[in-house]
């Protein structure tokens, strides 16, 4: 009897602490999501949204070729950004986790946080000076007889923006994850004759898999939904789904159609996130 009471008290205590986040999720995620879904069935007449249940917005968007080409381009760019950022971040994270002193790691983490002090938009605009035809990169290339190359208003510009957005975060997440790897396992692998590369692939990456996958997932989510880089550094050519949302709302106040695009984006992200988490927590075959 006393143990049941105790259990009840513990559950109530836990619930009290969980309640704010549950309420938060309902108010600011589930609620707007339900409204977004409902809005995709509304129609717009004379710039005013009419609450009704029609499939016209869905029919309109899903029957347009530009939606599919935008979708493929956005998905492709986000996938490439994820792979590129993961590959670029890993050596740095590995070095910070295993090769430097505690003091150096602490300073490095601090410097990795600094980029977040500045607005992403400001950082994006500063790339104009660096990537322009007459910018820093082309001036350096010109000094060794190359260029000038068009970097702004291309997919390269968009990718530079994506890296600006995700790379510091990814290095932080990867470093934290790699730092948790049991050093005894690494030593054991070496003692058993495993080389460095083999140890990385057979011991370190599997041990840090959850953190590495979550880092990559964040990278995909941020790149997939980003508007700033594709618009300002990519010149909106071709357009991504985020730009399509803006265009749709700008012309005719078509929020229901924008909601359709947003739902397609969110569905994609749900599937990718779910698959990633499944993969991250999958137990290796014994």
């Amino acid at each position, binding site marked *: 009897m006393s143990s049941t009471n105790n259990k009840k008290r513990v559950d109530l205590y836990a619930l009290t602490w969980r309640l704010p986040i549950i309420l938060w999720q309902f108010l600011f995620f589930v609620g707007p999501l339900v409204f977004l879904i409902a809005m995709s069935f509304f129609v717009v007449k*004379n*710039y*005013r949204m009419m609450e009704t249940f029609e499939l016209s917005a869905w029919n309109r968007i899903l029957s*347009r*070729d*530009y939606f599919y*080409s*935008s979708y493929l*381009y956005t998905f492709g760019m986000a996938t490439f950004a994820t792979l590129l950022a993961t590959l670029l971040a890993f050596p740095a994270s590995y070095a910070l986790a295993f090769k430097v002193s505690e003091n150096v790691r602490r300073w490095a983490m601090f410097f990795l946080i600094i980029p977040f002090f500045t607005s992403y938009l400001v950082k994006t*605009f500063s790339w*104009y*000076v660096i990537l*322009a*035809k*007459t*910018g820093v990169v082309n001036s350096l290339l010109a000094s060794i007889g190359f260029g000038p190359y*068009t970097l*702004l*208003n291309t997919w390269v510009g968009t990718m530079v923006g994506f890296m600006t957005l995700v790379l510091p975060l990814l290095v932080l997440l990867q470093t934290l994850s790699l730092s948790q790897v049991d050093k005894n396992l690494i030593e054991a692998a070496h003692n058993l004759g495993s080389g460095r590369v083999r140890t990385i692939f057979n011991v370190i990456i599997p041990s840090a898999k959850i953190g590495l996958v979550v880092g990559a997932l964040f990278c995909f989510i941020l790149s997939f939904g980003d508007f700033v880089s594709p*618009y*300002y550094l*990519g*010149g*909106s*050519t*071709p*357009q991504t789904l985020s*730009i*399509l949302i803006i*265009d*749709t*709302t*700008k*012309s*005719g*106040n*078509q929020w229901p159609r924008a909601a359709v695009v947003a739902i397609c984006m969110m569905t994609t992200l749900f599937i990718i996130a779910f698959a990633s988490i499944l993969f991250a927590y999958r137990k290796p075959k014994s």
Partner: protein
Amino acid sequence: MNETKTKPLANSMRRKFLKYSAATAVAAPYITSVKAAPTEINMLAWYGHGEPDIVGAYEEANNVKFNAKYYAGGDNMLALISQSPPGTYDLILSDAEFVMQLNAAGYIEEMDAAAYNFDDMLHDDFKQFPGHWRDGKLFSVMVRGGHLGVSYNKNAMTAEEAMSYKGFWKPELKGKVGHFDWHLPNLGMMSLLNGNGAKLWDQDDAGWKAVQETTMSLRPQVGGFFDYGGTFNSLKNGEMQAMCGIGDWITGVLEKDGAPVASVIPQEGGIQFTESYSIGKGSSKQAEVQKFIQHMLTPEGQVRSAEMAAYPGFCITKGGLALLQETNPKEAARSGQVEGAVNEPIRLINEGRIHYRDIPAQQGLEDWNDFWSDYKNA
């Protein structure tokens, strides 16, 4: 002992209290009259219209305060109004082609036509601007305008090449032609290139298809699609050397800053953007708003508007033009607001080379937008 020490102190404090209270009571009415709270006017406008260079002196002189809410594009403006209760905006600056929709939706008040000096307008069209009047009643007053044509970098194009929209297809400009990211002016220009002249917005299926084909043929030349900031930057840093869909309202700012850019009205014709003030439905400050609109039509108001830091426009009144020529002859010459200038706005209108921006007559705006999305993805 204690009593004798505290008594003089208490007396002194009481005297001070009485003295300051009396002083405050005497001065209070004067303080109130000097520092009355300003009347707040809620303005909905394009960026720049509520900034100190335009309204600062007027606010100071008339004890009013403008709370500006900025929008980007007519659709955006209509969306903002439709989502706000009546009376939210006292003063609405609108592109002329959207005034009819504002009126049809009942978002604006009828204005007192006798309160404005239409006789001072530089052109008869400005007095009876399409859509501003309905059944003889006034709903909007034009305050400024600007012309859209070919905007270019003088180092990449000659003035002669820029005198036709065909200049955008110049092989050397491949990847260096930019678009202001709004379908209306861009497709309007392509319609002009197709020889549609005054019927540029009124095209049947065949004409609309031809406009799409012409536009699509420009796609290989295009380096990007930009908003105001992006257009400004890409012209300034030379990434884009020609720009479709804009005019002096952007290149003028850069030109004043010394950049080698300019805008011209090509032989096929140009497009005029027209900005007009209306009084928001249900506004409780209609008298104050009317006074401000009257001020913007005075020579001083017109000159401020023509010199606007965010984007220049041209004067629409004789008094404004005369004062601009007198006080800022350099800007008057730069913007063609002098007799005999190649790009003199009123002469261009009289020659039939300028067409007022409008919305498509035979297609929906969404059809144009759909094509624009296709074009961006091509």
